[in-house]
C-alpha cells in the first residue's frame, strides 16, 4: 500500500511540474513566456512521460497559438516549433493529439515566414509528424498551394532539403500523389540534390525518386532523360549502387532503376540493369545483410525480373541465389532462441516477411524456365516449405506460397513428380475453402494446372469434391476467378469418364453454363466453349448430353455464331458443332436444322482458313459413310450445294483444308 501511495505521489509531482510549465506559457511578460518555452524544451527532450503530460495539460493549443501570433517574437515562434517537434518525437498517441489540434495547417502556414530558422523548425516538426504512420498523408495535399511552396523552399538550405524530400518520400502513396508532385516540378527540383554534399539529403532525394517512379511510366520516362551535373540520372543511380556505398543507398538506387525498368523506361537488357541492378539486388539477399534489407532486396528483385526470362536465368546462376534463399526459412534460428531473447524477438518479427519475400522471389525466378523450376524444387525441403507456407496464419505468406506453387506448377515434370509426392493438392484445396480473392485467384489457377490430364493429382482432387467448389467459383464477381473455375472444369472434363462429365453438367447446371456463354469476359467464354467441347467428346457421351441438353446447346451455338465474336471464339464453336456431328443421334439436331446447315455452308466459304477447316470438319462428320442414314444426309447436303463447295475447297492453297475436303468428297464415292 505504502508503495502504491508513493507511485501516485510521484505522478502527482510530475503532473505538478508539468502544470507549472504550461502555466508559464500564459505569463503576460513575453520574455518570461520565451524562457518558459525554452525550459519546456529542455524538460521534454527524451522524456516521453513529460511529453504526454504536457499534451494532456493542453500545452499544444497554446504553443500553436504562440507560434501563429504575428505579435510573438521570431525567437518565441521558433522555440514553439522546436518544442512541438520534440513532442512529435514521442509516441504515436502524441502524434495523434498533435494532428487533432490541427498542427499541420498551422505549421504549413508558418512556412510562409521569411525567417529561415523558423521555417526549418516548422519543417522539422512537419517531417516528424508526416513520417508517422498515424498521420493521414492526404493532409499534405489539402491546400493546393502547399506543394509548390515546398518546392520553392528546397533551395534554401540543406535542412529544408532534407526535411522536404523526406516529407515527399513518405507522402507519395498513390498515382495521384505522384502526378501532383511531378506536375509541380519534383524531378527538376530534386534531381540536383542527388549530388548534395550532405548524405542525408542525397539519401532522401533518392527515396523520393523511388516512390515517384514506382509503376509510373510518365515519371520513369522523364527520369531517363534527366541530367545531373552533366551526367545521366541512370548513371548517377549506378554510382550510388557502388559496393562501397552504404547499403541503404545501394538498395534504394537499385529500386529506382528497377521501377524505371518495369515502367519500360529502361530496357531489360540494358547493362545498368543486367550488370548493375540485378547483381546489386542479389547481393542484398545475402546473409551478411540486415533482415529488412534482405526482404526488400528479394522483393525488388522478384519485381524486376518477373516479366523477363533472361533476367531470371541470369539471377538463377548469380551468387547461388536459389540456395541463398533457402536461408530465409531458417528464422528464428534454433541458436537465437537459446542465446538471445532480443534476437529471437527480432527474428520472429521478420520471419514472416522473410518467408513471403523468398516465396515471391522463387515464384518470379521459376515463372518461365523449366531448368530453374527444377533447381528450385531440388532446394532443400522446398516442397515441404511451400506446403506449410500454404497453411500459415499470415495471409501474405500464404499468398506468396501459393504464387510460388503456381509458378512451379507450370512444369509438367514437377506436376508428375514432386507435386504428387508432397500431395500439395491437399493444403491447396484447404486454402480454396476460405480465402480472400487474391489468394483464391492464385490457388484456383494452380488447381487448373493440377487438374491437367497427365497430373497424377487429378484423381485424388476429383474425389475430394472439387467440382462443387469450382462451380461456385464460376459464379464469382471476379472475372479472374470465373475464368479459373471454368478453366479447371475444362481441364477436368478433358478425356474424363462419363460419370465425371455428368457430374460437371449436373453441378454447374445448364442455366449457369449458358450464362457463362454470354459472359462479358472473352476468356470466360473461350474456356466455357472449351468445357463444352471436352464434354462433347466420344460418341456415347455426345449422344447422352445432347439428348438431355441438345436444344439449349444448339441455341447457344446459334447465338454465338450470329453474334460479333473473335475468330477464336467462332472456331471453338464450330468445333463443338463438329463434335455434335460426330454423335449417332446428335447428328440429327444439325441435319434437321436448315438454318444451322446454312451457317456451316457460310463458314466453309469464309475468308479465314481456320473457320473453313472447322466447318468442313463438321460436314465431313455428317456425311461419314459407315453410319446409319449416311446416304440420306449425303443426298440432302448435295442438294444444298455442299459438294460444289467441297470441290472448290480441294483447290485450296492450304494443304490441310484441301486434304480435309478431299476426304469428305471420298464419302460420296464409296
Amino acid at each position, binding site marked *: 500500500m505504502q508503495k502504491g501511495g508513493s507511485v501516485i505521489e510521484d505522478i502527482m509531482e510530475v503532473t505538478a511540474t508539468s502544470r507549472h510549465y504550461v502555466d508559464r506559457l500564459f505569463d503576460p511578460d513575453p520574455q518570461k513566456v520565451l524562457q518558459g518555452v525554452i525550459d519546456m524544451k529542455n524538460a521534454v527532450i527524451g522524456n516521453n512521460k513529460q511529453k504526454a503530460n504536457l499534451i494532456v495539460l493542453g500545452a499544444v493549443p497554446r504553443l500553436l497559438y504562440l507560434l501563429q501570433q504575428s505579435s510573438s517574437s521570431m525567437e518565441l515562434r521558433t522555440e514553439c516549433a522546436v518544442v512541438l517537434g520534440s513532442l512529435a518525437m514521442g509516441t504515436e498517441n502524441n502524434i495523434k493529439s498533435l494532428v487533432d489540434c490541427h498542427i499541420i495547417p498551422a505549421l504549413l502556414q508558418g512556412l510562409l515566414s521569411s525567417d529561415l530558422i523558423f521555417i526549418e523548425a516548422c519543417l522539422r516538426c512537419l517531417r516528424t509528424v508526416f513520417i508517422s504512420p498515424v498521420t493521414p498523408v492526404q493532409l499534405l495535399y489539402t491546400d493546393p498551394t502547399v506543394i509548390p511552396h515546398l518546392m520553392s523552399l528546397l533551395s534554401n538550405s540543406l535542412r529544408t532539403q532534407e526535411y522536404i524530400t523526406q516529407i515527399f518520400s513518405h507522402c507519395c502513396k498513390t498515382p495521384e500523389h505522384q502526378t501532383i508532385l511531378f506536375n509541380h516540378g519534383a524531378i527538376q527540383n530534386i534531381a540536383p540534390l542527388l549530388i548534395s554534399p550532405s548524405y542525408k539529403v542525397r539519401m532522401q532525394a533518392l527515396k523520393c525518386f523511388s516512390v515517384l517512379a514506382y509503376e509510373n511510366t510518365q515519371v520513369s520516362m522523364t527520369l531517363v532523360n534527366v541530367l545531373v551535373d552533366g551526367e545521366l540520372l541512370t548513371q548517377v543511380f549506378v554510382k550510388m549502387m*557502388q559496393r*562501397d556505398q552504404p547499403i541503404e543507398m545501394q538498395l534504394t538506387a537499385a529500386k529506382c532503376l528497377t521501377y524505371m525498368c518495369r515502367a519500360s523506361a529502361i530496357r531489360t537488357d540494358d*547493362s545498368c540493369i543486367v*550488370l548493375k541492378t540485378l*547483381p546489386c539486388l542479389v547481393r542484398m539477399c545475402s546473409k551478411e545483410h540486415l533482415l529488412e534489407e534482405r526482404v526488400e532486396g528479394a522483393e525488388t528483385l522478384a519485381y524486376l525480373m518477373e516479366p523477363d526470362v533472361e533476367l531470371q536465368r541470369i539471377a538463377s*546462376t*548469380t*551468387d547461388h541465389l536459389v540456395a541463398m534463399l533457402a536461408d530465409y526459412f531458417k528464422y528464428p534460428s534454433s541458436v537465437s532462441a537459446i542465446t538471445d531473447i532480443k534476437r529471437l524477438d527480432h527474428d520472429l518479427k521478420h520471419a514472416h516477411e522473410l518467408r513471403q519475400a523468398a516465396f515471391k522471389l522463387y515464384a518470379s525466378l521459376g515463372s518461365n524456365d523449366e531448368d530453374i523450376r527444377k533447381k528450385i524444387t531440388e532446394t532443400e525441403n522446398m516442397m515441404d516449405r511451400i506446403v506449410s507456407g500454404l497453411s500459415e496464419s499470415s495471409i501474405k505468406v500464404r499468398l506468396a506460397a501459393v504464387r510460388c506453387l503456381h509458378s512451379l506448377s507450370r512444369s509438367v515434370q514437377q506436376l508428375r513428380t514432386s507435386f504428387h509426392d508432397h500431395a500439395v493438392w491437399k493444403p491447396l484445396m484447404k486454402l480454396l475453402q476460405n480465402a480472400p480473392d487474391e489468394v483464391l485467384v492464385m490457388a484456383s489457377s494452380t488447381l487448373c494446372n493440377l487438374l491437367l490430364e497427365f497430373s497424377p493429382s487429378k484423381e485424388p482432387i476429383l474425389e475430394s469434391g472439387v467440382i462443387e467448389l469450382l462451380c461456385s467459383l464460376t459464379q464469382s464477381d471476379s472475372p479472374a476467378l470465373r475464368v479459373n473455375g471454368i478453366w479447371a472444369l475444362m481441364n477436368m472434363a478433358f478425356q474424363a469418364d462419363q460419370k465425371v462429365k455428368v457430374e460437371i453438367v449436373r453441378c454447374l447446371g445448364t442455366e449457369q453454363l449458358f450464362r457463362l456463354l454470354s459472359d462479358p469476359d472473352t476468356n470466360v467464354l473461350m474456356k466455357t466453349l472449351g468445357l463444352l467441347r471436352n464434354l462433347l467428346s466420344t460418341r456415347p457421351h455426345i449422344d447422352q448430353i445432347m439428348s438431355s441438353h441438345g436444344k439449349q446447346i444448339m441455341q447457344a451455338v446459334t447465338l454465338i455464331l450470329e453474334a460479333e465474336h473473335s475468330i477464336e471464339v467462332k472456331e471453338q464453336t464450330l468445333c463443338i458443332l463438329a463434335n455434335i456431328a460426330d454423335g449417332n443421334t446428335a447428328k440429327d439436331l444439325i441435319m434437321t436444322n436448315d438454318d444451322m446447315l446454312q451457317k456451316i455452308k457460310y463458314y466453309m466459304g469464309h475468308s479465314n482458313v481456320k473457320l473453313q477447316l472447322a466447318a468442313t470438319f463438321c460436314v465431313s462428320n455428317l456425311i461419314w459413310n459407315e453410319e446409319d442414314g449416311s446416304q440420306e444426309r449425303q443426298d440432302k447436303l448435295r442438294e444444298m450445294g455442299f459438294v460444289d463447295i467441297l470441290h472448290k475447297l480441294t483447290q485450296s492453297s492450304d494443304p490441310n483444308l484441301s486434304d480435309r475436303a478431299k476426304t469428305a468428297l471420298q464419302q460420296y464415292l464409296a
Partner: protein
Amino acid sequence: MSGQSSGGGFLMSVVVHGDSALNEQEKELNQRLRRLYPAVNENETPLPRSWSPKDKFSYIGLSQNNLRVHYKGHGKTPKDAASVRATHPIPAACGVYYFEVKIISKGRDGYMGIGLSAQGVNMNRLPDITFAKAGWDKHSYGYHGDDGHSFCSSGTGQPYGPTFTTGDVIGCCVNLINNTCFYTKNGHSLGIAFTDLPPNLYPTVGLQTPGEVVDANFGQHPFVFDIEDYMREWRTKIQAQIDRFPIGEREGEWQSMIQKMVASYLVHHSYCATAEAFAKSTDQAVHEELASIKNRQKIQKLVLSGRMGEAIETTQQLYPNLLERNPDLLFMLKVRQFIEMVNGTDSEVRCLGGRSPKSQDSYPGSPRPFSSPSHKASSSQPYLTGFDSNCCNGVTSNKSHSSSPHSHKPCPPGSGSTLPASDISLNGSRSQQPITRGSSTAVMSKLPASQSNDVDMEVDHFTNGVTESSSNGFLNGTSKHTTEPDDCDADMEVESAQSKRQLCGGSQAAIERMIHFGRELQSMSEHLRRECGKNSANKKMLKDAFSLLAYSDPWNSPVGYQLDAIQREPVCSTLNSAILETHNLPKQPPLAQAVGQAAQCLAMMARTGSGSCAFASVDDYLH
C-alpha cells in the same frame, strides 16, 4: 559499359599484331596492374602476366604472347588432360586478385577447366598428375565447362554453376583476405566456389579435347566483370575494421599516448616553440630541457642553411666529445662542409668571398627549402626499420620542386626573412597530419594544419595558428638566425637576378681555401682508413664530393645533386640523432618509429599471405 568494351578489346587482341600494338597492350597491362594491386611489390612478388611456357604439359600449345592456350594432344581419355600455369603465383598483397579467360573454341567436347593450382613439388620432371585438368589434383581448384561443376583437389566435382562454352568469358577471383574464390560468367558473379585456399596459387587452365582454345586476360584488357567495384567493397570493409579497432580500455589513455607521440616528435626535431605550446595545452612534461632543444635547433639550422663550418664548431662547443667519439660522423660533416664550400654557402668561404651566406642558400621562395629533417631515407639514415621515405610527412610528392628550386621566384621582400622559420613550422605542421587523421583531432585543432604548398598561404596559416600560442615571442626558428640575415635580403634579390652561379661564390681566395680544405679532407680520410679500416661509404662520399670540381658548372653536372639544399637533410638528421643519443634520448622519434613499424608490418603481412595488407596502406593515413 565495361562489359561491352572489353569484349571488343578481346577481339582486338586476336586481330591486331605488330610491335606498336604490343607495346600499347603492355602499357595498358602495367597501368591496370598498378591500379588494381598498388600494394604489390613486384620486385619481390611479380604478378602473373602470361602463361608459362615452361610450366605446362606437352599437350598444351601457347601463342599470342603466351596468352592463348590450345590443346594439341589426342584427347582420347581423361588421362590426356593437360594444363598450364601462369608465370607467377598470385601475391597475397593483391588483397583481391582477378583474371579472365575467354573461350575461343570449345573444341570437340568442351572439357575445359579454369582455376588455380599450387606449384608442383617436383620441379624437374612434369608429373602428369599435377598437369591434369584444373581441379583434379592436390591443391588444384577448377570450374569445368562441360558440367558446370567445381573441382577441389579431387576427381569428383560438386554442382557449382552453369556450363560454359564458345564465346563465354569466365573470370576467377581469389580473395586473399578470407582465402575464398568465386567465378564469374560473362560479368556475373557465380558465388563462392572454394574456401580455405592455400597461399601461392597460380592461375591455371586445363584442356582435354582437340580444338579447345582459350585466351587469358591478366589485365591486358578491361575485365567484363566489375572487379574494381568488388575491391571497393573490401577496401571499405578493411578500413572500417581499422577505424573501429578497439583502442585502450581506459578513457583518455589513447589520447594521451598520441599526445606524447606528437610532443616527442616536435622535441626531436627541435620545433621548440610548437613543442612548448603543445606540451602546455596538453598538459605534458617535456623530457628534454628547453635549452638543450634550442641548442639542437641552432645546430640544425646551421646545417640546413649550409653553414657547416659553424655547425661543426657549435657542435664541438656544446657537445665536446661527440664528434671525437664519432669520427665517421665528423667525416661526413666535413665532406658536407666541402660541398657547401663549392656551393659558396659555408661560412669559411662566405667571409672570403664577401658574399652573403644566403646568396645561394635556401631559395626561400621555393615551396620546400627545408623539408622536415626526417624526410630523407637513404640507407645510412636512422630509419632502419624499413621506414620508407614515402611514409613520413607526406611531403615526398614535393621532391620534384626541390630538385629544381631555381625555377621558383624568391619570396616577396619583407617577408623573406621570416620564411625559414615559417617553413620549418610548415613541416612541423605537416608532420602532424598523420595524427590529425587519427582519432585525436581535438588536440590538433590549435595547430596549423594546412597542406598547401603555397608559401604565402603558409605564412598566413602560420601566423594565424601558432603565434597566439607561442608565448616567448620567437617562432620556431631561433630568433637569432631569423633576424640575422636581414642584411641579406638585398643580396638575395640581386643574386636572384644573376643567371650563373660561380664556384665558391666566385672568390679566388675562397677557391683556394676550398682546395686546401679538400686536401685536409683527403688526409683525414686516409687517417680514418688507417685507424678504423676501409669504409666504402666514406670513400664514395668523398669521391662524389671531389667529382664536383671536375665540371665547369657543378650545379648542372651529373653529381650536381649534392649541391641541392635537400641533401643537407640526411646530414642534419644524422647529427641530430647522434646528439640525442648522447643524452640517452631515442635517436628516432616514436612517431616515426610507429609509422615505420606499421609499414614494416604490412610488408610482413604481404610475405606471410595476409591479403588485408592490400587495403591498409600507411600512406592512406598520412595525408
